[in-house]
């Protein structure tokens, strides 16, 4: 449907800017603290003075290169984050126009459908790109087929992914 909006999460660029925004706020706090110290309103030594004293007379060294590499890596990570597309949060269902379902929602439905199947003691589900993986703990081998049928019924119309059931046998005392 052309007028549908593809639901996406916040782009990672927003997280990158948020990181720099927090740094900016920290810098503001330090600057105000330095002003208070420089004007004699608070005890101590301004941090900018310590920074200048520390950097003055510094020679080119392997440590400086390492610091440069670390800063560069942070910059490259920020650049990659800025260019990554926003993650899709929901998948379009082919069978029903207008219906979009998130992967955790599919997993929740599959898990509960498996849990409600007679003979199942415990169940969990994970959604992969092409399949829904359901893991169950049961006591009879026939349960796997029942779980598959039950999950298929629950997910009918929501996803075309293959249902894969993995069972773990538990002994009933």
């Amino acid at each position, binding site marked *: 449907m052309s*007028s549908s909006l593809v639901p996406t999460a916040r782009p990672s*660029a927003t997280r990158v*800017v948020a990181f720099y*925004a927090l740094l900016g706020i920290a810098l503001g706090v330090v*600057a105000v603290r330095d002003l208070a110290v420089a*004007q004699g309103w608070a005890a101590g030594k301004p941090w900018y003075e310590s920074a200048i004293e520390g950097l003055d007379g510094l020679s080119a060294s392997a440590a400086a290169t390492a610091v440069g590499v670390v800063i560069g890596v942070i910059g490259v990570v920020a650049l990659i984050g800025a260019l990554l597309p926003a993650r899709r949060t929901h998948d379009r269902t082919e069978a029903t126009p207008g*219906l979009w379902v998130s992967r955790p929602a599919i997993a929740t*439905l599959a898990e509960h459908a498996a849990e*409600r199947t007679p003979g199942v003691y415990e169940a969990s589900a994970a959604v992969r790109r092409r399949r829904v993986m359901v893991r169950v703990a049961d006591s009879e081998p026939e349960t796997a087929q029942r779980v598959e049928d039950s999950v298929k019924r629950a997910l009918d119309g929501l996803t075309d992914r293959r249902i894969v059931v993995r069972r773990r046998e538990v002994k009933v005392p």
Partner: protein
Amino acid sequence: MRRKGRVTDRLLAVLLGALTTAAGAAVALWGLDAVPRWPSTLDLSQIDDAVVDTEWWPWAWAGIGVLLALLALTWLLRRARPVSRPPALSRASTDAGAVRVDLDSVAATVARRLEDMAPISAARGKGVDARGIFRVEVRAAIDEISDGPAIARAIERTQHELDESFGDGRAVCQLMVSAPSRWQALRRRGGTTPRVH
């Protein structure tokens, strides 16, 4: 989050990332002594005398810091709160007169209707005028005991009702279902009886 906000964030992130990368590369090159024109030892004594030891420097430094912090805080607050927007209105004129419809109210009603018909909860609707087509965006949490066909039937029925009200293809329903949040799931489980095999 609006498209404009996303573009701004992307541009800002590219700019900040590029500046950081450039700064890191400059420091690394200086550390390797790779640029002959750059001094191998930093001499900041002139800056110390001409800038840092002056009367105005602490105020200028504080001013820059506070300005940056305020800009950062404003940006964070704008991203933290939901985007406010004017109500989307649809206008139609007939021989009998003009009609204006508040699309958000329609979307809220559609959300309530879907919640009644389908095994979903916490449905919230938003009306969007997408170039002449009214799009009803409904976000909801799926009920744990639910099934696909029931949701599909509900959305098909809702779409049919929208077609009857607005005309074929004039209004589109988009339902986005997610897993229930941890709090919703806990609240629901609190009232249920444990299963016994």
